């Protein structure tokens, strides 16, 4: 039972990260119908930048801020320089271009930093508090929850309460009409990519210290888990992404806790197949056809 409680909390903490990352995927999917397969690589790139700044200045938080800002810039540049010019005639094109980005980013990171794992520090201890002999959460887990909750809250505020958020939703929903009404649709797209990449960078900063450390491929498996989370929730739904993230986090935690860590990716694959074949619109979708 103790073990179950610990695994549950651990799973929720992991799930919060997947939720943030899935949210970033959903942000881009909703406005452009592209699943950004380069999201993991982009997050790794900004994490490297963040840890370089941390190492140079000695301050974790300066590096943290660098990573998030780097995400904003990288996302905007990616949209302006590359993604804007993708031919959307076939849904494959966006995927293939994103894969090209993955190769470029991983290649460049490998050239600059080398292909060995580097330690990535965390701002808080990762030893779990114990309550009545039961290990529950570490201070780092609390930090993860707080950071993800803040981001989800800020995004909800942005989309529900601000004029910019309204314009972004309008651009995603009906780009041509929005353009006629004077909305800068291109600008909204760039903003969407920037925000998504920043959220992805945050997720990277939160997950990399709990994995093996910094490596050009550090986010490959995280990306698959987060993609699964987004699909579980339905790629169109922000709330679904958060719930999907928590479900995937719990599943991974229980599977690695009871069956062994190597089984976890297989469990994710099985979950993905089950959801895609059973409810391709996501567990929380209403009866609406998926066309893309």
């Amino acid at each position, binding site marked *: 039972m103790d073990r179950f409680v610990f695994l549950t909390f651990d799973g929720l903490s992991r799930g919060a990260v997947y939720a943030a990352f899935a949210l970033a995927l959903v942000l881009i*999917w909703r406005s452009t119908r*592209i*699943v950004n*397969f380069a999201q993991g690589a982009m997050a790794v790139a900004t994490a490297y930048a963040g840890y370089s700044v941390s190492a140079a200045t000695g301050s974790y938080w300066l590096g943290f801020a660098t990573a998030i800002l780097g995400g904003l810039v990288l996302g905007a540049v990616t949209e302006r320089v*590359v993604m804007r*010019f*993708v*031919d959307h005639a*076939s*849904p*494959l*094109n*966006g*995927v*293939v*271009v994103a*894969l*090209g*980005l*993955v*190769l*470029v*980013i*991983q*290649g*460049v*990171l*490998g*050239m*600059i*930093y*080398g*292909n060995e794992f580097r330690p990535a520090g965390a701002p808080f201890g990762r030893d779990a508090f114990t309550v009545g002999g039961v290990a529950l959460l570490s201070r780092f887990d609390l930090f993860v929850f707080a950071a993800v909750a803040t981001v989800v809250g800020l995004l909800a505020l942005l989309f529900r309460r601000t004029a910019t958020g309204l314009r972004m939703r309008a651009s995603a929903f009906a780009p041509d009409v929005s353009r006629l009404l004077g909305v800068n649709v291109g600008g909204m797209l760039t903003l969407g990519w920037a925000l998504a990449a920043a959220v992805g960078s945050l997720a990277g900063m939160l997950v990399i210290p709990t994995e093996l450390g910094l490596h050009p*491929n550090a986010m*490959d*498996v995280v*990306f*698959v888990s987060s*993609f*699964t989370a987004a*699909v579980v929730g339905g790629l169109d739904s922000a709330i679904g992404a958060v719930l999907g993230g928590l479900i995937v986090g719990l599943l991974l935690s229980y599977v690695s806790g009871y069956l*062994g860590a*190597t*089984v*976890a*990716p*297989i469990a*994710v*694959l099985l979950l*993905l*197949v089950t959801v*895609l*074949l059973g409810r*391709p619109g996501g567990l929380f979708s209403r009866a609406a056809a998926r066309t*893309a």
Partner: protein
Amino acid sequence: MSAGGGEDARSALRERVPPETPVTAPPRRPGNAWYLSGIAGAALLIVALTYLLPPFRTYQLATVGAYLCVTAGLTVLTGLNGQLSLGHGALMATGAYTVALLQQATAGRGPWTLPVSVAAAIVVTTAVGAVVGLAAARLRGPYLAGLTLAVAVVVPATTSTFDGTFNSDQGLSVVLDPPPGTIAVERWQAWLAWTGALVTMLALAVLVRGSFGLRMRAVRDDETAARLAGVSVARTQVLAFVVSAACAGLGGALFAVLAQSVSPGAFPLSLSLFLVMAIVIGGLGSLAGAVWGAVLLVALPALAHTVTEDIEVQRLEGNLPLALFGITLIAVMLAAPGGIASLRPLRHLRRAERERRAMRKT
């Protein structure tokens, strides 16, 4: 349009289509004899090359052959059927591990063991491909890409979970009998790999030119129209995936024979991305593009190796080709989605000439 417009348009149409125009004349297609002579010529060329090239180049030639099996199959799947798979590295691993396991059990019992192992590898991979393909037929675009990506990521996890069979990260060695007679090992490997590659190319060429190829292209271009025309979309997609998986299994098996070992490190996610990249750069939609892709997969890393050898920066090796591949891929997708195979200036001229002649006749 006025009331008499319909009549006018009909008479205009009658004038434009002269009655003697043979409406049903099919475009001339190369027959099977043409293919066979092409394959025979290629085989002669390969044999000649294995005697002319130094051993290392011969080994590279063999690698091109093994890659060609996979890129040709993937071209059929992605280029002709419109299904993007990021999991072909995993399918190659399936074929490679099957060969390794069977060779461990049977090597040394006679010359029949290797062909049997390779055939078994194709069968096993085809079965795995059918399972993935059944799921794939219900998915589109990014959903399919995500699912196959998950398949590619699962390879190392599978080898560690069942490490009694697959021996985790260390992998297995492939026990092989020495080549018959006094044939050099590399030459023997090149012959084996290219036998597989040429058989694959011949089979796929025949398949693609036939009605199955027509159905695949119909499904790719417009699923609804294809369905209306009586094509079973799901069956076509599953079949395309199965054919492509069989090719990947053969390619993986040949890889195991060339490297004489298999390990999860040989089939990383980047291998699957490289395969997609190769066929996109080579040119989707034509088997000639697959040849270009296979050549690139061997030539580009080798080229980067020669460059970095002189600079002596260790980090560049392996990463430089990665970045080059990526940049080329993005540039090709943005500028020339047809790939190398479409970059034939003569093709445009020839088409223009044909059209002019047709104009003059009418």
